[in-house]
């Protein structure tokens, strides 16, 4: 009898460990998270508009039907990303998520304070590599540090009335999210330079 009780107590203690490990591991092993759901239909380092939320739309739960939504799935391994989102008449916001859907930063049109939300997204390492004297660019462009190399940027524009949805979508269609061409050139030029070093 005591042995059975001991067995059950051991089981419960082990169960608590299983519970903690599974909760902490879930974000890493979940295969149906928002990033994975968006991967087949969105382009990398480019803006993709999502279909407006309606009952047939089941890609992600709890989408706000009053918003036009566009997504930029990013990968910063090629260099920092430049994001430009024009501000719509009603309300516009930009939210940043890591690969595991941690919302690490969000900004709306009023806190951006301009007609266009302009941001530079980079990893912490890329931020540290920035030349110190570039405070001119830092002054008018907001720099955001991404905790992960990959992630999601979600741009939303409110349609206060259903009739304004077309307008909200048009605003997001004018937004851009890309790694500037000169940086891409740098990274593509980079591979030819190591071979001479290797010969020596």
């Amino acid at each position, binding site marked *: 009898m005591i042995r059975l009780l001991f067995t059950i107590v051991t089981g419960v203690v082990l169960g608590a460990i299983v519970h903690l490990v599974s909760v902490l591991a*879930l974000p890493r092993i979940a295969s149906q998270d928002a990033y994975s759901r968006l991967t087949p239909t969105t382009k990398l380092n480019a803006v993709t508009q999502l279909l407006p939320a309606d009952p047939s739309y089941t890609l992600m*739960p709890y989408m706000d039907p009053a918003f036009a939504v566009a997504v930029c799935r990013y990968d910063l391994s090629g260099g920092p990303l430049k994001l430009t989102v024009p501000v719509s008449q009603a309300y516009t916001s930009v*939210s940043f998520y890591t690969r595991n859907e941690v919302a690490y930063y969000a900004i709306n049109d009023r806190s951006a304070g301009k007609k266009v939300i302009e941001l530079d997204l980079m990893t912490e390492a890329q931020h540290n590599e920035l030349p110190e004297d570039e405070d001119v660019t830092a002054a008018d462009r907001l720099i955001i540090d991404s905790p992960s190399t990959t992630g999601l940027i979600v741009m939303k524009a409110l349609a206060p009335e259903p009739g304004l949805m077309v307008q909200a979508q048009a605003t997001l269609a004018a937004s851009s999210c890309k790694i500037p061409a000169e940086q891409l050139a740098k990274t593509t030029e980079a591979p030819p330079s190591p071979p001479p070093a290797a010969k020596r």
Partner: protein
Amino acid sequence: MRLIFITLLALLVAAVVGLGTTWMTTTRGTELGTLTIGAWTARPRTGTADVDPYSRATITRNGELPIGTGDGVAFTATTDDGRRPLDGRCDVVVSGVTPAARFWTLTLYDNKGHLVANSMQRYGFTSQEIVRGADGAFEIRIASRSRAGNWLPTGGIERYALMLRLYDTPVGVATRTQRDAPMPSIATVGCP
């Protein structure tokens, strides 16, 4: 023989207890970091980098994108003020005022988080399209059949959830009570 049996039993109990509690906490949610005002519940911390592990597990499991703190905050209600589950066959009235925010939206979802089909293609209201009284207060009627004023159709489903999202609002991690955030009341006024 006995040792094997005991070990297997212990491992079985561990698996059932461990995975069972994980399933329970990720489907039903926990009380960690919740802000409850009346029938409304919000988890302001899910929109920040210091989100608790249970909310993180729930978010990735459901495939949702939480609303970021710099964007707004989302309140959910699955019952009325009297703790009675929201029933799509009954008439439910959401009335009163909302906390300070530049915009808000009220949306009706089924228990999987999907919108409910209806012939009017009305899935919710925004703060701008709502019809208000002279004092600025509003009244939304949630029912399966058409009603006068601000009518939100339920499609007659048995259980649903209401989500009130406040955009560009001071309500957030620091909010504690009804006084900081006066939430509208939810009342079931009649069932057929």
